[in-house]
């Protein structure tokens, strides 16, 4: 699972929809993998306004990345190739292959195996 996708995930449990603490989900025992893909600045330009930067910082912190800037790059910073390449590396090339995603509100844990997260819920939680 790419960090980009993880940035958009929320808890699927019905009671967590309104709770602020259900986002972002927290990684536990995560194993990372780097898979290189083609660099596409247009995609980053398109997606960056929708990234929740605070969520990304929390996740990167849990996964043990050192250097995530405090503020979301905006305006002229997006024309800098190095910034874009860094974003590309973090958002699109970093994959979480194994581990668990945990909801901060209800504590439900979603297993990740071979990069696939299991979001099936038992019927009483739907």
């Amino acid at each position, binding site marked *: 699972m790419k960090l980009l996708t993880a940035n958009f995930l929320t808890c699927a449990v019905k009671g967590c929809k309104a709770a602020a603490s259900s986002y972002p989900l927290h990684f536990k025992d995560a194993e990372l993998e780097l898979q290189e893909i083609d660099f*596409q600045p247009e995609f980053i330009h398109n997606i960056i306004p929708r990234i929740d930067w605070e969520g990304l910082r929390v996740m990167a912190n849990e996964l043990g990345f050192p250097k995530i800037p405090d503020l979301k790059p905006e305006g002229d910073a997006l024309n800098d190739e190095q910034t874009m390449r860094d974003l590309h590396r973090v958002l699109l090339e970093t994959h979480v292959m194994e581990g668990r995603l945990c909801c901060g509100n209800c504590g439900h844990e979603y297993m990740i195996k071979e990069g696939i997260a299991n979001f099936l819920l038992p*019927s009483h939680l739907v």
Partner: protein
Amino acid sequence: MSRPEDILPPDLYYNDREASLYTSNSRIKRVQAEMTHRALELLDLRTPSLILDAGCGSGLSSEIISAGGHQVIGLDISASMLDIAVQRDIGSDLFLSDLGQGVPLRAGSLDAAISISAIQWLCNAESSDVSAEGRLRRFFEGLYASLRRGGRAVCQFYPKNDAQRSMISGAAMKAGFGAGILEDDPGTKNSKLYLVLTVGGGGLQGDITGVVNGMSDVDVLDARKSATEKGRVLPSRKGDKAWILRKKEQMTRKGKVVKANSKYTGRKRRPAF
């Protein structure tokens, strides 16, 4: 012809065997590719986007979308199908998830959504604590929330009958979408239905029919217009001239030998003497 939807729930029907048969069948591959290209044409994406593939299966359509430079998030309920998708290494992010339980993404995250031959499965309620209407409602509400303003979704589906067709499109409209149905090759065995959904606030001017502006060979039939004009046109009754002409046309289309139409067609026979 039997429908897999009538046999088993999707997570059990698509076991390892069915999943590999589905993915290796060249006819299915060709049809899926055609439908995906058509759906992409309807989505009309200008920039590389983030797209949801609802019911992605083994990733036959995700592969085609990724090839256009887009990022794909795939959801499916069949673990066997996802297993094949992982082996095929299609580069999209996959989730084991039931569409009838909603879409676990935060609001306004997606540019577009696509779904090929999947949402008719939502019309099956496998246990007594869920209903088909409830599953469809949760899916469309989740989808509506997760699309950004001006986003679009195209869902190709195979309804069992007209009741299912109107149940699915009705559920989408209740969730807030502007909805229209595009039918390719109507009246033939290869007819394909696409439910085209729009979220307001985008560049689309006017109503849903604007989606097909500029496409050739598309006739727009507006059900709303005919509903307001109701009463002026009498509906044809079984046995009257219009009914006979319609039936004759149907038979001609099927390739049957049909008598030519004349002024006597559909006229009542009087007693001769």
